[in-house]
C-alpha cells in the first residue's frame, strides 16, 4: 500500500515542483538558522556558528538534489531537461536544424508512403471478413486467354455439389465489357459498367450493403425482375448520394431496373478483381439463361470451411475436377477440366504478382533512409567537432558519459521526430494522390491511406533513424578524451583527423548506396523503355475507340439469324460510312473486343482433314470484326481484309495471326507454309473456313508477354458481343470525340455518351504497374543521388574549412590556384571512386536479385552501369568543385593570420 501511495505522491511532486522546492528551501533555511542559534548558544562566534552549521549539514545543493530524487520522477525530469536543452541548441542553429529536418522528412516520408502501399496491397488482409478463407479457383495459365481461365455453368453446378471443403462457391461473368450499361434518364444515355455476379456472390465474400439489400437466389432466376446494386462511388456521382434511392427504378439498357441496394465504400469490385477498371454497379447473373450455352464464362471464388487447409482444398478440387463437364449434354466434354481446377488464396491472386516489385520498392526506400541517416550522421559529426569543447566541459563538470550520450540521442530524437512529422505530411500528400490514380492497374490502390499501421511504422522508423544517425556521433563525442578535446585547438590535431576519417567512411557508404539505387533504377528504366519499344502488332498512337450502341434485334426471341445479320450489316455499313466521312478520319473499323482488354476463345480450327492433337490447351483468341478494322488498328496484313461481300451465304472466311498460321502449317503441307487461301475447319462446326489473310501477332493479353494466337471472324458471318468503333485519324482523339459521337447519335439517338478512349490508353494501362514502380524507384534514386551529393559537398567543404591554414601555407609557399583546386577535387573523386567500386559490386548482387523484374535487359547491362558511374562521377566533380573554388580563392595572408 505504501508503494502505491508513494507512486501517486511521486507523480504529484513531479507536477507540484515549484511549491515543493519553495517548501524545501524554507525548511533548509530554518534548519540552518536553528543550527546557528544552537551553536551561538554554545559560545561560538557568529562566523564560526554558521560555518559549523554548514559543515554539519553537508552540501546544501546535494541534499536538495537527494530530496528531489526521493520525492519525484527524477528520470523524467532529466528527460524533460534534455528535451528542453535539445530544443534550445537546435533553435540556436536554425540552418542546421532546417537542413537536417528536411533530409529526414524526405527519407522518412518516402518510407511511410511506400509502407502504406505495401501495407495496402501486400500486408493487410483483403477487405472481407475472414479473408484468409477466400480462394480464387482457376486453371493453370494457358494460351487461350480468359476462356481458359473460366468455367461453364454446368461445371459450376457440379463443382458446387462435388466439393466438400467449401462453405460455398460463387463467381462472376468474366466477359462484361466496359460501358455495358446505358442509363436513360432523358437526354443522352449515360454509359456505365456493371459486372454480372452469381446471386450468392456477396454472401460468400461477406459483404453487407450500406443501404437496402444485396442479391438473393431469386434475383438470379431466369425471368426475375431486373435489379441492380450500385457502387458507392456511382451512387454519389450519378445519383447525388440520394438517400432514398433504394426501391427506385430506372431505364437501364431499355428495361426498368430497380435499385435494391448500395454497396459500402469499402467494397470496390474493380480494386480487387479488375485493377484499373471502374465498376459502377453489380447485376445478378442468370446462370441458366442464354449464357448457359456459351461455354466458359464464370470465374470461381470459394470460401473454405473453417479449419480446411489449402492443400486439403486443392486435393478436394482435384478430386471434383474429373466429374465436371463443359456441357452436361455433351458427355465427351466431361473430364475437360481434369487438373484444371486449382484453388489459390484470393490474396495471392490479387496481389501475388506484385510481391517482388513491392519488396524491391521497399528496399529502395530503406536505402533512402540509410542514405539520409548517413548524411545526418555526417552533419552531426561536423557539429560535434564544433561542440567538442562544450561536451568536454560538461564532462569535466561531472556529467556522466551516459548523460551526455543521452543528451545527444535526445537531440537526435527531436530531429527525427520533427522529420517524421513533416515526412508524415509529405507522405499523406503522396498517398492521397496515389489513391486517386484510378488509371494505375494496381489492386486495392483506391483503399490506400495512412492508417494506424502506417503511424506505428512512422514511430518505429523515426526511433530507428534517431538511433542510427545519433549513436555514432554520440559515442564518438562522449568517448573522446576530455583533455584532448579541451586542448584540440583546431586543424591538424588528432581529434579533427579522426572525425574526418569517419566522415569519409560515411560518404563512401553513402555513394555506394546511391550507386546501388541508381543501377536499380537504371535497369528498371531501361526495361521500361524496352517495353515501350515492343512491337505490339498494332499502332496505338493516333487511334481511339468508342463503344457503339446498336440494335440488330438479336436479343428478341424468335429472331431469324439471317434477318439479324442483314440488319446488323446495314447498321454497321451506315456507321462506318458516316464516321469515315468526318474530315481527318483515315480509317475506321469495328471489333467486339480490343487488345489488352477482354478476350475469349472458341476452340481451335485445324487444317481441313487434320485430326487435332488431344489435350491441346491453347486456342486462338476470337475477334469479330468489320472490314477496315485491321487497317484502323494499324496492324499489318498479308492476304486480303474482309469485305461486305463476305455475307452470310457466301464462303465462310477468317483471318488468323501469323504465329497461329505457323502453328497450323506444322500439321500440313501448305505451299511456302502460307495459310492464305487455305481451308481450315473448326472441330465443333462442320463449316469450312477460308483463310483470307494473315495478320501480324497482336499482344492481346500483356505488353510484355509474347504475342498470342488470334482468329478474326467477319461480323457479317459471326455474332459479335457489342462493338467497339476504332477510328484512326491525324487529329487527336479529343478533337475527334465530339464529331464522332454526334455522328453516332444522329444514326442512333440511344447512343450513350461513351468515352472516346485512345488506343494508347489501353497500352498505358497495361504498362502502368511497371511505369508506377519505375517512376517511384527512379524518384528514390534521384533523391539518393541528391543526398549523396550533399554528403560529398559537406565533407569536402568542411575539410576545406578545417584546412584553411594549411592551404594558406601551401599557397604562400607557391602552390597555384589550380593545384589547390586539383587537390580538393581529387579528394572528392577519390572518395567517390571507392564508393563507386563498392557500390558496383553491391549493384551486381542486387541486379541479380531484381532480374525477374527486368524486361529484355541483362542484370549486368553495361549501359546502365556505365551511365551510373558517369553520373556519380559528374556529381562528385560538381560537389567537389564548389569547395575547391573556394579553397583556391583563399588569401594566404588572411588564412595565416586567422585562428
Amino acid at each position, binding site marked *: 500500500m505504501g508503494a502505491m501511495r508513494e507512486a501517486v505522491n511521486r507523480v504529484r511532486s513531479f507536477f507540484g515542483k515549484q511549491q515543493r522546492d519553495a517548501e524545501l528551501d524554507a525548511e533548509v533555511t530554518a534548519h540552518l538558522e536553528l543550527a546557528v542559534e544552537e551553536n551561538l548558544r554554545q559560545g561560538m562566534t557568529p562566523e564560526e556558528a554558521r560555518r559549523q552549521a554548514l559543515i554539519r549539514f553537508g552540501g546544501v545543493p546535494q541534499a536538495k538534489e537527494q530530496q528531489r530524487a*526521493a520525492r519525484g520522477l527524477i528520470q523524467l525530469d532529466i528527460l524533460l531537461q534534455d528535451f528542453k536543452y535539445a530544443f534550445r541548441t537546435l533553435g540556436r542553429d536554425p540552418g542546421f536544424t532546417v537542413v537536417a529536418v528536411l533530409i529526414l522528412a524526405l527519407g522518412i516520408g518516402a518510407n511511410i508512403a511506400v509502407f502504406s502501399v505495401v501495407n495496402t496491397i501486400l500486408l493487410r488482409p483483403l477487405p472481407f471478413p475472414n479473408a484468409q478463407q477466400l480462394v480464387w479457383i482457376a486453371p493453370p495459365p494457358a494460351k487461350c486467354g480468359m476462356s481458359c481461365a473460366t468455367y461453364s455453368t454446368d461445371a459450376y453446378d457440379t463443382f458446387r455439389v462435388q466439393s466438400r471443403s467449401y462453405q460455398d462457391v460463387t463467381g462472376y461473368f468474366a466477359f462484361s465489357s466496359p460501358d455495358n450499361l446505358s442509363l436513360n434518364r432523358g437526354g443522352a444515355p449515360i454509359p456505365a459498367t456493371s459486372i454480372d455476379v452469381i446471386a450468392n456472390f456477396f454472401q460468400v465474400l461477406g459483404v453487407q450493403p450500406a443501404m437496402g439489400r444485396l442479391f438473393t437466389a431469386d434475383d438470379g432466376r431466369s425471368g426475375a425482375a431486373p435489379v441492380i446494386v450500385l457502387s458507392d462511388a456511382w451512387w454519389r456521382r450519378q445519383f447525388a448520394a440520394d438517400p432514398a434511392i433504394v426501391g427506385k427504378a430506372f431505364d437501364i439498357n431499355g428495361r426498368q431496373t430497380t435499385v435494391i441496394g448500395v454497396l459500402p465504400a469499402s467494397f470496390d469490385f474493380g480494386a480487387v478483381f479488375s485493377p484499373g477498371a471502374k465498376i459502377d454497379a453489380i447485376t445478378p447473373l442468370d446462370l441458366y439463361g442464354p449464357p448457359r450455352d456459351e461455354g466458359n464464362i464464370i470465374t470461381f471464388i470459394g470460401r473454405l470451411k473453417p479449419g480446411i487447409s489449402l492443400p486439403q482444398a486443392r486435393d478436394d478440387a482435384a478430386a471434383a475436377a474429373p466429374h465436371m463437364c463443359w456441357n452436361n449434354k455433351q458427355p465427351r466434354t466431361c473430364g475437360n477440366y481434369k487438373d484444371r481446377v486449382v484453388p489459390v488464396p484470393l490474396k495471392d491472386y490479387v496481389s501475388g504478382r506484385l510481391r517482388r516489385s513491392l519488396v524491391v520498392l521497399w528496399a529502395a526506400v530503406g536505402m533512402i533512409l540509410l542514405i539520409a541517416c548517413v548524411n545526418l550522421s555526417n552533419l552531426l559529426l561536423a557539429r560535434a567537432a564544433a561542440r567538442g569543447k562544450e561536451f568536454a566541459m560538461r564532462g569535466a563538470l561531472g556529467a556522466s558519459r551516459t548523460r551526455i550520450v543521452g543528451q545527444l540521442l535526445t537531440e537526435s530524437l527531436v530531429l527525427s521526430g520533427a522529420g517524421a512529422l513533416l515526412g508524415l505530411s509529405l507522405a499523406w500528400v503522396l498517398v492521397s494522390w496515389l489513391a486517386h490514380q484510378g488509371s494505375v492497374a494496381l489492386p486495392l490502390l483506391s483503399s490506400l491511406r495512412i492508417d494506424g499501421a502506417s503511424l506505428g511504422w512512422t514511430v518505429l522508423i523515426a526511433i530507428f533513424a534517431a538511433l542510427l544517425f545519433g549513436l555514432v556521433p554520440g559515442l564518438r563525442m562522449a568517448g573522446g578524451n576530455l583533455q584532448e578535446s579541451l586542448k584540440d585547438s583546431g586543424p591538424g590535431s588528432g581529434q579533427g583527423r579522426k572525425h574526418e576519417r569517419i566522415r569519409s567512411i560515411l560518404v563512401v557508404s553513402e555513394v555506394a548506396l546511391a550507386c546501388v539505387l541508381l543501377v536499380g533504377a537504371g535497369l528498371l528504366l531501361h526495361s521500361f523503355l524496352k517495353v515501350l519499344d515492343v512491337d505490339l502488332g498494332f499502332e496505338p498512337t493516333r487511334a481511339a475507340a468508342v463503344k457503339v450502341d446498336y440494335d440488330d434485334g438479336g436479343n428478341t426471341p424468335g429472331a431469324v439469324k439471317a434477318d439479324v445479320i442483314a440488319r446488323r450489316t446495314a447498321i454497321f455499313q451506315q456507321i462506318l460510312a458516316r464516321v469515315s466521312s468526318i474530315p481527318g478520319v483515315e480509317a475506321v473499323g469495328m471489333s467486339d473486343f480490343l487488345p489488352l482488354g477482354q478476350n475469349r476463345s472458341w476452340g481451335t480450327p485445324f487444317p481441313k482433314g487434320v485430326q487435332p492433337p488431344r489435350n491441346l490447351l491453347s486456342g486462338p483468341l476470337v475477334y469479330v470484326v468489320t472490314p477496315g478494322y485491321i487497317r484502323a488498328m494499324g496492324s499489318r496484313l498479308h492476304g486480303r481484309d474482309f469485305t461486305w461481300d463476305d455475307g452470310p451465304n457466301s464462303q465462310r472466311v477468317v483471318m488468323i495471326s501469323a504465329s497461329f498460321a505457323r502453328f497450323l502449317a506444322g500439321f500440313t503441307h501448305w505451299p511456302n507454309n502460307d495459310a492464305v487461301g487455305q481451308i481450315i475447319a473448326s472441330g465443333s462446326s462442320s463449316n469450312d473456313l477460308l483463310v483470307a489473310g494473315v495478320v501480324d501477332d497482336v499482344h492481346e493479353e500483356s505488353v510484355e508477354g509474347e504475342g498470342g494466337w488470334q482468329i478474326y471472324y467477319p461480323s457479317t458471318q459471326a455474332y459479335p458481343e457489342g462493338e467497339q468503333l476504332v477510328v484512326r485519324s491525324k487529329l487527336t482523339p479529343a478533337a475527334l470525340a465530339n464529331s464522332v459521337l454526334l455522328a453516332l447519335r444522329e444514326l442512333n439517338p440511344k447512343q450513350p455518351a461513351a468515352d472516346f478512349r485512345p488506343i494508347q490508353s489501353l497500352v498505358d494501362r497495361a504498362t502502368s504497374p511497371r511505369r508506377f514502380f519505375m517512376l517511384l524507384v527512379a524518384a528514390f534514386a534521384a533523391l539518393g543521388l541528391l543526398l549523396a551529393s550533399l554528403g560529398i559537398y559537406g565533407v569536402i567543404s568542411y575539410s576545406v574549412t578545417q584546412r584553411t591554414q594549411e592551404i594558406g601555407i601551401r599557397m604562400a609557399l607557391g602552390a597555384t590556384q589550380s593545384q589547390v583546386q586539383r587537390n580538393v577535387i581529387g579528394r572528392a573523386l577519390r572518395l567517390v571512386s571507392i564508393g563507386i567500386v563498392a557500390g558496383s559490386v553491391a549493384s551486381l548482387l542486387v541486379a541479380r536479385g531484381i532480374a525477374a523484374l527486368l524486361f529484355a535487359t541483362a542484370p549486368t547491362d553495361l549501359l546502365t552501369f556505365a551511365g551510373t558511374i558517369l553520373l556519380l562521377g559528374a556529381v562528385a566533380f560538381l560537389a567537389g568543385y564548389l569547395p575547391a573554388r573556394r579553397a583556391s580563392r583563399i588569401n594566404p595572408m588572411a588564412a595565416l593570420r586567422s585562428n
Partner: protein
Amino acid sequence: MAENKLDLLQGTLDIMVLQTLATMGALHGYGIARRIEQVSGDTILLNQGTIYASLVRLQQRGWISAAWGTSDNNRKAKYYSITKAGRGQLAKDAAYWRRLSSVVDRVLAMTAEGEF
C-alpha cells in the same frame, strides 16, 4: 574525529527517523537530526542534509505527516510526526532489524570449531 564514525547502512536512517518520532513526538528536521546524533553519542557519520530525502520518502509513503509550526524561539519550521501506519511499519522494521542483527551477531561469534 571522523575516522571512527559509522557509515549509515542503506535504509537505516529511515528506521531511526521513525523511532525518533515515535518516542519524541512532533519534531522538525533539525531536531530529528540532532536527536539521532545525540542518541548515537556522535558516533554516526550523518550529513544532516540527508535527512530531508528520508523525510520526504517516509512522508510520501504515508508513514509520517508534516505541518508547519513555530519553534520555542518563534521560528517557523516544518514539524513531522509519526502516523498510525508509520508505527506499524516501525514495528515491522524493528523486528526485521533485530532478527538480522542477531543473525549477524551469531555469525560473527562463530569460532573455528564451529561452536556458538
